[in-house]
């Protein structure tokens, strides 16, 4: 012990007085011994303990990895769902009604108001009230639109489908409600033969648009046309309609409306009234003017 102390002193070299005192004080600290039951407790502890080598070493890692993976999964679920619903909402947004060139419909105002057309069994004028307020109704229709699934679908006349009975607009007097709910109670007024829900697939080019718009323009007059190789052929003329009285025949090729070619942009660029059409009957061009009788 003395030798060890001597060796330690040599190792330390020359110490200051303070260092020596500190050293003495620390060395004089009473030694603390293990309790009497140390061995007994140790045996019990060894008996209860598991050898460290049998403990799975990945457990500490799992402690962090598991919660982390759960958090990542939850985030991924939320993000994927968010994107999915966003896409769904976007698709739903695309199905919103696409307004159909309202100015063209406006051109038919006078025809819709014409007594001949008003007599026709059009949903637009089932009674006097509606007939009287047809102008305002048409205005509503302008804002209304034909709901279509995609831009490639445009409403045209087709087979008449049974239209679901619309709920009575009793709530209309109560006021309030959203624009959509209010619109759902309105009775939609459409030109003869056209149903709001009628859809037909078509491409978005101008030629098709012209076809459709021409059809829409001529239908109130009682003319039903079909497009063949870029020409509009009269397929049928409604009995006792203004067209029949004016002399429109089945097989006529419609070339002009109000002096404007139906194949050009005039149909949807200009405000045509549909008072006169030019048809090709065989090789002869015939101008037909509709009077309001």
């Amino acid at each position, binding site marked *: 012990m003395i030798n*060890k*102390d001597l*060796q*330690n002193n040599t*190792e330390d070299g020359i110490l200051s007085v*303070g*260092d020596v*005192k*500190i*050293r003495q*004080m*620390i*060395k*004089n*600290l*009473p*030694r*603390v*011994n*293990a*309790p009497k039951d*140390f*061995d007994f*407790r*140790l045996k019990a*502890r*060894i008996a209860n*303990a598991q*050898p*460290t*080598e049998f403990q799975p070493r990945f457990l500490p890692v799992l402690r962090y990895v598991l919660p982390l993976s759960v958090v990542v999964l939850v985030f991924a679920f939320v993000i994927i769902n968010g994107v999915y619903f966003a896409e769904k909402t976007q698709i739903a947004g695309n199905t919103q009604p696409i307004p159909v060139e309202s100015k063209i419909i406006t051109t038919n105002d006078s025809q819709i108001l014409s007594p001949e057309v008003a007599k026709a069994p059009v949903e637009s004028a089932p009674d006097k009230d509606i007939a009287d307020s047809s102008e305002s109704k048409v205005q509503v229709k302008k804002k209304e639109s034909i709901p279509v699934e995609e831009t490639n679908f445009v409403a045209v006349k087709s087979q008449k489908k049974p239209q679901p009975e619309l709920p009575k607009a009793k709530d209309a007097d109560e006021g309030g409600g959203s624009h959509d709910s209010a619109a759902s109670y309105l009775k939609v007024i459409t030109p003869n033969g056209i149903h709001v829900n009628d859809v037909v697939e078509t491409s978005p080019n101008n030629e098709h648009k012209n076809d459709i718009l021409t059809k829409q323009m001529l239908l109130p007059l009682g003319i039903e046309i079909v497009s063949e190789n870029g020409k509009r052929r009269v397929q049928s003329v409604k009995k006792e309609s203004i067209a029949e009285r004016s002399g429109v025949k089945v097989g006529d090729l419609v070339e002009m409306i109000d002096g404007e070619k139906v194949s050009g942009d005039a149909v949807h660029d200009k405000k045509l009234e549909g008072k006169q059409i030019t048809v090709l009957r065989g090789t002869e061009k015939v101008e037909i003017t509709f009077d309001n009788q």
Partner: protein
Amino acid sequence: MALDKFEKRSAEVLQTIVPIEKLSDHELIESAKGGDEPAFAEIVRRYRNPITNYLYRFLNDYEEAVDLAQETFVRVYFALERYHTEFAFSTYIYRIATNLAISELRKRKRRKLVSLTGFFQYGDDEEEDFQPPDEKPLPDVNLVENEQSKIIGRAIATLPEKYRAPIVLREIEGKSYDEIAEILDLGLGTTKSRINRARGLLKEKLKNLI
């Protein structure tokens, strides 16, 4: 296999011829590896007090020191097969004890951070404890000595852990610089400088007693 049997038998022979108390640490470890419980018990008997004392001075908490001393022996027991005789056994066991003590100190720090009271305490190890000098006359010499020991113990316990282990091993356990360097896995120069630094810090902390 045959070698194992031979070693086991040789250990038994050694035990019968030489009293177990006179066997070296390495011989006892070899015996303990072969399942010789008295050999391991002898190792425990030799080191339980130094390790408990070392840990007590390191942590300044007797219960914790005893608990960690036991944990040290549990670790030694389950790692007997992996023990190599390159180092002295005392170096090996002190290294385990030091690592456990450092882990315990870090746990305490974490607990201190979490606890509400921790926010209102000066938690830095580097900071000095405020110990106002006691001006009252002391009635009993033993009491004075006990009180002085407590103050020194607290001063050691408030040293940063990197200075605490070397100074305790040097001044309390009487280890050489080489041993300390091996136990703490440090260079000799670093060990010496840390011990000197620890002495300097203690001198500042205990200037009232010097």
